[in-house]
């Protein structure tokens, strides 16, 4: 049994979340992570229940607010492997502002968005990624908003690791997850995830027919062509690492953290207070 296993889940049978959970456990094991150094962070939603189903430290905060908590935990203790799992509504709707700005902050965490293109836990309203025209109990005349393209958005905001995958392609997902976790900086994977209970448009079959892996010669370092690829989301949906760029992360730029000692372990000078008070004389 996996190091990362735990109790029963409350997801619907057939839900794509199961594959994501399995893949994540696999990825963590293959990377040889110690569960006690892993911190799973989530907001609120179906996807956000994932930390409850994996043996690791966990922080299940507020709906939409997982990223600020996650990056700050990493700032406090860089030895933690910080992984955020949460929904499309949580990440791009309620949490949209944190999404765009944490890309700019570039803290070394990993963000897995279970993108079922619907609000699952609240029983099926349109999410930011829902297709235009989708009918729900709230969008009775069809969703009027054009869907957000999260990977395009991430690239446009300057993210250094932007990927898409699909819960139904476990091998692919595990491989991309591992790359994302190992990437030094903010890494996001938008994971297509069928919601069998509420999303009758974007089903397993829907995704399965459309997804294809990026060509072997795909150049993930070219931002413009990455954006072009990112816009491909229709009859064909590319999966894989769309854009990747290595750059200094938050810790490397922060004067307190750049020495590499976790914040909570830095010894404070015993004379610190006495030195500071001198300013006020």
């Amino acid at each position, binding site marked *: 049994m996996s190091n990362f296993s735990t109790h029963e889940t409350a997801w619907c049978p057939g839900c794509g979340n199961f594959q994501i959970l399995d893949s994540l456990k696999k990825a963590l094991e293959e990377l040889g992570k110690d569960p*006690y150094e892993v911190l799973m962070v989530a907001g609120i939603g179906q996807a956000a229940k994932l930390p409850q189903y994996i043996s690791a430290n966990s922080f*299940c905060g507020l709906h939409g607010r997982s990223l600020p908590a996650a990056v*700050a935990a990493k700032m406090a203790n860089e030895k*933690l492997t910080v992984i955020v799992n949460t929904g499309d509504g949580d990440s791009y709707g309620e949490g949209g502002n*944190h999404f765009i700005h944490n890309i700019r902050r570039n803290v070394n965490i990993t963000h897995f968005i279970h993108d079922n293109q619907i609000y699952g836990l609240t029983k099926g309203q349109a999410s930011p990624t829902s297709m235009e025209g989708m009918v729900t109990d709230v969008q009775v005349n069809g969703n009027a908003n054009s869907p957000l393209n999260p990977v395009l958005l991430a690239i446009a905001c300057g993210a250094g690791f932007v990927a898409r995958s699909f819960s139904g392609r476990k091998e692919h997902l595990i491989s991309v997850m591992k790359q994302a976790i190992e990437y030094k900086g903010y890494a996001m994977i938008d994971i297509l995830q069928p919601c069998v209970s509420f999303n009758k448009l974007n089903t397993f079959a829907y995704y399965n027919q459309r997804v294809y892996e990026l060509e072997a010669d795909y150049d993930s370092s070219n931002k413009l062509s990455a954006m072009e690829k990112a816009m491909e989301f229709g009859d064909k949906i590319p999966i894989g690492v769309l854009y990747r760029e290595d750059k200094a992360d938050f810790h490397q730029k922060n004067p307190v953290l750049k020495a590499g000692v976790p914040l909570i372990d830095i010894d*404070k000078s015993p004379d610190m207070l006495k030195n*500071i008070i001198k300013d006020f004389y």
Partner: protein
Amino acid sequence: MAAVLQKFLKDSGLYVFTTRDFMSRVRGGHNFTLIRFGPEPVLSHSDIMDGIIAFDEDSLVLHSEKLKKDGFLLCDSQYKTEDDRAISLDMLSLAKQIGNARTIGSIATGVILKLFNLQLLNLEDTLRKHIKEQYLEENKKAILTGYNLVENRYTLPAHEAKSQIILSGNQALAFGAIAGGIRFYSAYPMSPSTTILEYLSSKSVDANIVVEQAEDEIAAINMAIGASFAGAPAMTGTSGGGFCLKVEALGLSGMAEIPLVVANIQRPGPATGLPTRTEQSDLKFVISASQGEFPRMVIALRNHSDAFYQTARAFYMAKKYQIPVIILSDQYLADSYASIEPYDMEKVKYIQDIHSKVEYNPLDGEYLRYKITEDGISPLLIPGKTKNFVTADSDEHTERGWITESADVRNQMMDKRFRKLIKLKEELQEPEYIGEDSFETLFLGWGSTYGPISEAVKCLNQESPGTYAALLFGDIYPLPEKLLKEKVSQAKQIINIEQNATGQLAELIREKTSIVCDDSLLKYDGRQISVDEIVSYIRKGVRP
């Protein structure tokens, strides 16, 4: 120039209290600084002025009513005034001669120092502290020019306050946070809280603090909670409008029992209100902010001494009880400078204890983050620092920290969380009592009205000894009731004096104790109540 002047005053052994009055704009508008100083400790501003230094025509007119009959009105000779209190000097042209019209402030500083017969102690050092290297020489010249321009006029009695420190309320708060062990501060800029962010940024390397400007206030508080969860004592600061956005996460701190300090530097509301002015109108708001019910503590800062000690203590209380602790300050305290006794670092040493205690390993067996305990406090470990999993959940949860819907567990957890208040209440600090053993009228106040009210008590008792007293609350929620009940039982009349429109302290006191105030002195025009206003209300019934 205020910064330089107040430093000279302090170094001459005088006590100083400086407040700023500025408009919500970057340039222009009518802005002024009040400096009050003397040989005895000064706790607040005063409406009555001994002197005015006017740098524009407005200032000549706007304040002259409040100038004492024998006061002086220092101004440049370019402005025409009929006022016979005026000291008109050619300051501008002298400044231009020195080579920079802006040195006029330093000339005026020199003039003032001479008028009061003060020596130019540590001239260079003082200037270096507040003035950029490149402007140093010209300002030195300007001060000396001013100093030689006039004759001495006043003589102050001997005084002995040279070893005082001088700092603003927000600096004191921020320094208190450092003493409280802060390692993480996140905030979104908002007056009058921004100077905390600035101060902590400037000290981030020296004090090993990660200081992060957040994209919004919601991020700021959720970051602070995340950092605290991971073991870094954390604070977030803002003013009322930003506090609104932190309300949901305040409940997260309460539910997940993650220590947190939140500083709310009040300004007049509602909404954007009067952004650069002062008020105490968020008390009831912060007491009941967030849905549901959970224990919290609210500490109001009364003065520059509190700002340091109580902020440090807030970290201690937050960690000890694993609760959010809210610090209420306001623009008046935040932006005013006072010279006070240097802080005693021994007094904050106990705080280190609690930080180290946290990392203890739990008893044998399973680690229960939310163990049901008698005192309601459960073992708090730091994730990654132990071979136990540390959990936090905003849902109701079991002892292990997993989501639950059990009615029994819910009851146990609610009761456990609230049990923390029993012990906490035992270590509440009673309000400060100002007055003699016997009195008739009891003033009730809280926070930054400490200065005006306590000076008013002294002033009123000079005429009518043993008549007035005050109870001034610092710890305000949970409300410490002991001394209150004792003094109230002695009082003939109770008057709450508050910087708000609804008398929030009085309401809180009635809710908890059924004590009803006989009268209220409330001010909510954005300007701090002064000792003079309190005194004249009591003596003449004139409301400010």
